[in-house]
């Protein structure tokens, strides 16, 4: 890294850390129902919303009703988007006249945006109308993020409350989250993004002349759409001269802001945040990275405030930053070393394949670890073209279970499950009854924590195994050898952990991936959510045990290191064999061992 890159990276973390406390305490006020500086404007809106929708704000829910509301709301979200995708062609704001989705792709996409995954098996600028982008996908970006945050808040209440079965009202948590947190930050962020060149309009696609015309060989097709072959069975091509191109337009900025802030990640364009209209400058790039990490980072402070000891929050944030910076360091190292097979040709040894010039190497790599440590999945470089060990960094961050900052809300509740496992294991080692935050950890909490941390991993490994013996799944690989396995593993890991980024060469719009992916995303989102709410329900009913001499201090550095180890060991034990066959073998091939 050169001096500028050090400065850029260090300053980034300084800004992020400076925002954690103010935003974290603001969110705590929002979810504890206190008034904030936005209440003057928003409290009346809130009241109207509750009265129209029939929500009684002080009608608190037990864990089962909270789960029921989450699932019911998500079912409505899914159905709404599924229908919109199947009927987008006659709907308004469709200047490029895009057709309807097939039902398999619509199923996959509707599940994807409802579960906060934003896996995209389609090309945005060719397949989706402005209406669907704005009224469908962007709305899901808000409410799926709010759903995740609401669940995390209910889980925190489980730790805080004593001898009650009530965890809060889902409708209120979701509404306040969207109104007070997501919308105001998105409006500011979207405006800043436009200032950098992110577009925001409803114009038709613009046709511009090329300064120098270009040409290419297009395979000839017969009337039925089959390639025409000559006598020697070679495909016939015709040379096409291109004198002008069409540039897509659209309401991008409003979507870009919430896509990063809600750790959704679904790009308006196929190239996602690498596209100059989504991410035009180095500043827009750093802003987008900040938006990705902002809420998951600040939620650790919200957690600290609500449990009455902010050191607990800082400890979790410390673990997250430690692992994130470690992965960034490795990625930066291997990418600046480059690909020896290309360097051999007389080319400078730094890997620029799938990266944009304006961000610089450090700006690309920081985005990569941020988007995969969280469950965002937006990309500003193509992860598929990273060097093998480089590509293993985002893959590993996903496989760890999206806890290194993690998805908005889901990251916090998943790392809390890891904290419980860590407390339990250390409790066994020192012979004490495990306690966390004054609550005794018993069989039920252990069961639920194990379900939370293992569901996605088990799903990934089973589906990857099935993919390897399914001809259609294997035929979708775009790269041969070990890299092809990485492609499939990455895709299924991304879906099961609700990330949404890809080794994008994989041809994912086939029935196998559309359907198995929809299943993986559903399992990966809802089983942990239900388990963690069930755990919160049982925690809330327990009495508080004041810390004694024998209590393991869970707000100090040694516990942070212990938690880091537990996370890394669980990850390594689960995934090392699969990683050894993919990226590790390919790295050895690349360096010529």
């Amino acid at each position, binding site marked *: 890294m050169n001096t500028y890159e050090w400065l*850029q990276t260090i300053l980034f973390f300084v800004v992020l850390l400076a925002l954690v406390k103010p935003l974290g305490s603001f969110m705590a006020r929002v979810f504890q129902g206190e008034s904030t500086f936005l209440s003057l404007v928003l409290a009346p809106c809130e009241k109207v*919303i509750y009265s129209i*929708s029939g*929500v009684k704000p002080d009608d608190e829910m037990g864990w089962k009703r909270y789960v*029921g*509301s989450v699932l019911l709301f998500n079912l*409505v*979200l899914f159905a*709404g988007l599924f229908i919109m995708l199947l009927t987008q062609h006659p709907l308004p704001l469709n200047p490029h006249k895009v057709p309807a989705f097939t039902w398999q792709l619509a199923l996959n996409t509707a599940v994807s945006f409802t579960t906060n995954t934003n896996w995209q098996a389609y090309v945005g*600028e060719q397949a989706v109308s402005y209406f669907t982008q*704005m009224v469908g996908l*962007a*709305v899901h970006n808000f*409410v799926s993020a709010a759903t995740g945050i609401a669940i995390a808040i209910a889980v925190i209440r489980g730790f805080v409350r004593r001898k009650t079965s009530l965890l809060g009202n889902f*409708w209120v948590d979701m*509404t306040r989250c969207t109104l007070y947190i997501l*919308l105001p930050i998105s*409006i500011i962020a979207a*405006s800043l993004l*436009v200032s950098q*060149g992110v*577009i925001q*309009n409803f114009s038709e696609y613009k046709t511009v002349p*090329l*300064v*120098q015309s*270009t*040409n*290419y060989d297009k395979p000839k097709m017969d009337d039925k759409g089959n390639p025409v072959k000559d006598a020697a069975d070679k495909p016939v091509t015709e040379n096409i001269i*291109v004198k002008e*191109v069409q*540039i897509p*337009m659209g309401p991008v*900025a409003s979507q870009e802001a*919430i896509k990063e802030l809600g750790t959704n990640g679904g790009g308006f364009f*196929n*190239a996602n945040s690498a596209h*100059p*209209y989504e991410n*035009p400058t180095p*500043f827009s*790039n750093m802003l987008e990275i900040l938006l990705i990490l902002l809420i998951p980072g600040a939620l650790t402070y919200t957690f600290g405030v609500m449990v009455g000891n902010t050191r607990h929050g800082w400890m979790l944030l410390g673990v997250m930053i430690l692992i994130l910076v470690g992965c960034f360091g490795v990625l930066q190292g291997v990418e600046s070393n480059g*690909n020896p*097979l*290309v360097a051999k040709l*007389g080319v400078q*040894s730094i890997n*620029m*394949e799938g990266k*944009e*010039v*304006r*961000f610089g190497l450090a700006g690309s790599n920081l985005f990569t670890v941020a988007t995969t440590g969280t469950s965002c999945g937006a990309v*500003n470089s*193509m992860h598929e*073209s990273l060097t093998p060990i480089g590509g293993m960094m985002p893959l590993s961050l996903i496989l760890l279970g999206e806890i290194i900052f993690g998805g908005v809300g889901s990251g916090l509740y998943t790392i809390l499950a890891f904290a419980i496992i860590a407390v339990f294991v250390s409790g066994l080692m020192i012979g004490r009854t495990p306690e966390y935050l004054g609550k005794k950890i018993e069989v039920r909490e252990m069961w639920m924590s194990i379900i939370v941390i293992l569901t996605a991993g088990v799903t990934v490994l089973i589906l990857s195994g099935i993919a390897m013996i399914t001809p259609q799944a294997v035929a979708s690989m775009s*790269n041969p*050898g070990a890299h092809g396995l990485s492609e499939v593993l990455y895709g299924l890991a991304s879906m099961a952990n609700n990330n949404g980024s890809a080794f994008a*060469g994989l041809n994912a719009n086939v029935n196998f991936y559309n359907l198995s992916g929809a299943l993986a995303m559903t399992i990966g989102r809802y089983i942990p959510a239900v388990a963690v709410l069930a755990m919160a329900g049982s925690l809330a009913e327990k009495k508080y045990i004041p810390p004694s001499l024998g209590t393991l201090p869970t707000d100090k550095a040694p516990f942070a290191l212990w938690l880091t180890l537990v996370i890394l060991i669980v990850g390594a034990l689960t995934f090392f064999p699969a990683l050894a066959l993919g990226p590790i073998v390919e790295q050895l091939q*690349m360096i010529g061992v």
Partner: protein
Amino acid sequence: MKDIRPAILLFIIFTIICGGIYPAIVTGVAHALFPKQSTGSFISDKTGKEIGSSLIGQPFSDAKYFWPRPSSAGEFGYNPLGSGGSNAGPTNPDYLKTAADRVKTLRDSGVTGTITADLVQASASGLDPHITPESALLQVTRIARVRGISEDRLRMVVSKHIEERQFGFLGAPRLNVLVLNLALDGVK
């Protein structure tokens, strides 16, 4: 079952707020404060006709122009309707052959010494409007020869068009290929 009503109504209400009011506010702010950026940062020629966007790269292969990065966008490269990268893995034999071909093209055009990575490796968007200043300097000899102007003068044009790091430290220094080539043609 009393939660069915809020589930449906809140979905409708938030569709109106987040899918209607929010983008309307952002569009209003965008057009009032940043009319040029919000509509695509288009460049116009002397007659006011839009001739390209300063953010969307174009393909150049003619010897008299600065060449941009290789592109995998669409069937012919730099097709804005098919943004994206090559998604080639680092050990893919087809990719390594393509890279070797690109090196040969550059060598044939007179480039000597180590070639910059961004001239051989394709961008992520396929529409990257920039190359590094080093990549521009590698091409100066060729363009000066074809256009019949002095290398020193061309170097001055190049250095005049370098975009420095934003605020002095963000990102990387770069050159906008379309803007630079329009300057060579005297259009802009």
